[in-house]
């Protein structure tokens, strides 16, 4: 009953009723959130923050300190030191980018702090560099791409043109796709990180005999590419991981994104109670549709609060066990932790559609059920 009442309490809190958090089993926890709130990638950090705050609303036992890393690893490291040493937080969370996570997470867990990742999932932290105190509530970087490769095999996609920015996450994403994809890779192009003009690449696509373009271009890069691709008259199908087709940027791409297939662990139309409530509450609170980043922030706060109801954060072993249970109603539906503290979850295939005037995503199937990353075998904890 305790768990049910906890979930109920979380739900009430999330409803925004403002009711005081009154679960006697909860221990006080101080959370330090380091995320990107200014600069080019700010939309992602703002969504994670807003999702987290929505789920934690009204919980008086959860104290949240929010800091802006400006997408710079050196600043993230300074902020982590400050949060651990002078703010004395128990739990860290919030980092969006893999390179920042690699700079902060190993040091934080070495100092005995829990870290809950609401976005980045570098392979190093899923494999050899895993830690009992590190939990990834989002995905391992390869996940969406492995699922997309599997979906491509089953849906008659024979020849793909691959494109990603030339940096570690871009290479990981392409490697993830190629791990499961069995058809031909016609061409593999690595662009400059932050590139804004894709005319040259689109010309190559036009000249190639690929039937599908598969690309990973997060943030503004994806917006630029899709707008230019739509105007180019090239009519090959387009696919990618959800990052280029997320709610925060679909509005900027507009109709040019319609029909694009993308893989994601979450979509606003996944049919479960927790998700319906999340989507409705988020719109009521912030006046915009939630993105997958908001969903991850929300789930991170739910996970944290589920553990707070079961164990005291000062008792690290008990708190770790409580987190491992993942005893919360995820907006994604099914959610469990693999032994390396990374998710086991369904990866869906979505399609970009228009609902009224709003360009958004619709689930069209499950690309990879109960997906789990391949790096867990190297994790010894």
């Amino acid at each position: 009953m305790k768990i049910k009442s906890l979930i109920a309490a979380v739900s009430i809190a999330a409803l925004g009723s403002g009711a005081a958090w009154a679960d006697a089993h909860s221990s006080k926890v101080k959370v330090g959130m380091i995320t990107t709130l200014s600069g080019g990638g700010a939309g992602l950090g703002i969504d994670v923050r807003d999702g987290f705050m929505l789920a934690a609303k009204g919980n008086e036992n959860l104290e949240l300190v929010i800091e802006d890393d400006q997408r710079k690893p050196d600043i993230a490291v300074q902020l982590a030191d400050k949060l651990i040493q002078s703010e004395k937080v128990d739990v860290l969370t919030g980092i969006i980018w893999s390179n920042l996570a690699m700079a902060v997470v190993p040091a934080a867990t070495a100092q005995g702090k829990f870290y809950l990742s609401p976005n980045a999932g570098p392979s190093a932290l899923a494999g050899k560099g895993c830690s009992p105190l590190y939990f990834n509530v989002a995905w391992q970087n390869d996940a969406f791409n492995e699922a997309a490769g599997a979906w491509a095999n089953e849906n008659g996609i024979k020849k793909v043109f691959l494109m990603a920015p030339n940096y570690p996450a871009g290479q990981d994403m392409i490697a993830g796709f190629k791990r499961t994809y069995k058809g031909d890779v016609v061409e593999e192009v690595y662009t400059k990180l932050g590139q804004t003009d894709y005319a040259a690449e689109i010309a190559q696509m036009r000249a190639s005999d690929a039937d599908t373009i598969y690309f990973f271009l997060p943030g503004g890069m994806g917006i630029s590419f899709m707008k230019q691709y739509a105007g180019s008259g090239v009519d090959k199908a387009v696919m990618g991981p959800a990052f280029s087709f997320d709610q925060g940027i679909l509005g900027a791409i507009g109709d040019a994104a319609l029909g694009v297939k993308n893989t994601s662990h979450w979509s606003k139309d996944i049919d479960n109670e927790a998700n319906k409530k999340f989507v409705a509450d988020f719109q009521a609170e912030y006046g915009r549709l939630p993105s997958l980043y908001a969903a991850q922030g929300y789930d991170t706060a739910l996970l944290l609060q589920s553990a707070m109801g079961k164990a005291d954060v000062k008792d690290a072993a008990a708190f770790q066990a409580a987190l491992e249970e993942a005893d919360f109603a995820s907006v994604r539906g099914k959610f469990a932790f693999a032994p390396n503290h990374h998710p086991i979850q369904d990866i869906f295939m979505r399609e970009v559609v228009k609902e009224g005037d709003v360009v958004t995503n619709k689930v069209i199937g499950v690309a990879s059920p109960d997906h789990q990353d391949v790096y867990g075998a190297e994790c010894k904890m």
Partner: protein
Amino acid sequence: MSLILLIEQVLNGIQFGVMLFLMAAGLTLIFGVMGLINLAHGSLYMVGAFAAAAVAGWTGSFALALIAALAAAAAAGALVELLVIRRLYDRDHLDQVLATFALILIFSEGTRYIFGSFPLFLDIPAALSGPVLLPGGILYPLYRLVIIAVGLLVAAGLFVLIAKTRIGIQIRAGEADREMIAALGVDISKLYTLVFALGAALAGLAGALVGAIQSVQVGMGEPVLILAFVVIVIGGIGSIKGALIGALLVGLTDTLGGALLPTLFATFMEPSSANTIGSAVASMAIYILMAGVLLFKPSGLFGAT
């Protein structure tokens, strides 16, 4: 690589170059006439794009959006010149860099404050969208051809302005000898504001034109700014002709380098490493070009020696 693909890439290179020219022209004028390094030039580009996106959102008219972009960027430029830049002409370049860097931060956070952190929507007008069939069976986006045309028109207009008009004479005189034209009774501070606003308007126009095919977001100007500096260094500081030639050189080198080098390396290397090394060299190509030009012409192609 087929001939059609090559021609398409050349057109892409020219279009990119023309875009860079709009940015570099303002930058080189401001540096040439006032001796000022303006790092905030990229912010004016962003102002143009945001103004265009906002007005296009309200009115649905791309023509009005372009006018708004020109007006907003020119106004922002004039305002910045009157309030901040004016105090910097006599200071050394380090002070100018510091102050204009501060302006970047102020513009970025100010834009975020007004428009939020999410990219804005700005689309190509329906009449200009889609590809056109060029002679020889080349399918090319109409909008990019329009950008090339607009850029070349602006270049022609600037040449006429500088070479034939009274303002142009004053600008050239200001470049050559600041004290002398002040002594001859030209209101130098008004001239400076005008030149600054003109440069800003060109940057705003570039921002609005490019915003329609790229992402309109905070910080969009800085990557272009770096390339614009490369252009004016190659072309020779203060020279509009140099800016045009430099911009086309940089645009073509960057586009063709990215398209051709991996293929070129593949003729004598493993395909996978050719791809990696080819892309790496391609991203350095414009800087190699700059170093090469400076080796033989230390003040740029058309710079005053």
